[in-house]
């Protein structure tokens, strides 16, 4: 159904994908202060991969993803989300209470909400990608 595309699509996908991924990370990290965050960044990243999928097909995209299966991304995302639950426990606060740690020298806060947001990012990216890739694979099998 979806034919691997034309020269323009190829070139565009090749250049745009890294840029989009970079942008998604940017959106993720600034999400606590400006519009953005895990959901949006995850969708942008999923969009980046989907563009690549349309240009080069599933197997090429799997190569780009290397060892990482989208399903693993879902798992990692949920795991990070769960991990951010526990630090509060060790300092005797209710579960999920946000914890903040300053990294000396850098003007950046490491925190459980950040870990959580990264978890959301990975879960959203993984879920969307898994759905789209599975659909395309099945499409290829039965034309």
């Amino acid at each position, binding site marked *: 159904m979806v034919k691997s595309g034309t020269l323009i699509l190829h070139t565009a996908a090749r250049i745009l994908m890294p840029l989009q991924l970079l942008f998604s990370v940017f959106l993720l990290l600034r999400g606590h*202060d*400006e*519009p953005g965050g895990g*959901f949006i960044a995850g*969708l942008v990243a999923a969009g980046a991969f989907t563009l690549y999928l349309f240009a080069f097909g599933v197997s090429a995209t799997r190569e780009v993803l290397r060892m990482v299966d989208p399903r693993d991304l879902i798992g990692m995302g949920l795991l990070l989300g769960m991990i951010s639950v526990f630090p509060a426990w060790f300092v005797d606060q209710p579960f999920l209470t946000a914890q903040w740690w300053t990294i000396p020298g850098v003007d950046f806060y490491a925190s459980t909400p950040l870990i959580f947001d990264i978890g959301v990012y990975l879960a*959203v990216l993984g*879920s*969307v990608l898994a*759905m789209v890739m599975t*659909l395309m694979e099945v499409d290829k099998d039965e034309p």
Partner: protein
Amino acid sequence: MEPVMAVAVGLLYAAAIFLMLRRSIVKLVIGLMLLSNAANLLIFTTAGMTRGAPPLIPEGLAAPLGPVADPLPQAVVLTAIVIAFGVLAFAVVLIRRAYEIVKADDLDKMKETDT
């Protein structure tokens, strides 16, 4: 603006329900899409609509300068949008599989094949 939106959301609901009452399975999917959007807008509108005051705090301040739009419904709707996408994907694939097996585009006929 809310009265206008109220009418618009009402129309969206009507269109969604009308589509979901069809027997054609594809129309059911489209109706589902309309319904989730309509529900999001319902929450968004009921909370009150504010122009040009996003719930962001300027850098260096501890609180927004003036009144801002209510952030809570926005947060609720944001996740709802993403989940609606997930559910839509699930529904669409479900219907696709059902269609592959039953080969009927009429929801009434799906009844007879399920034993």
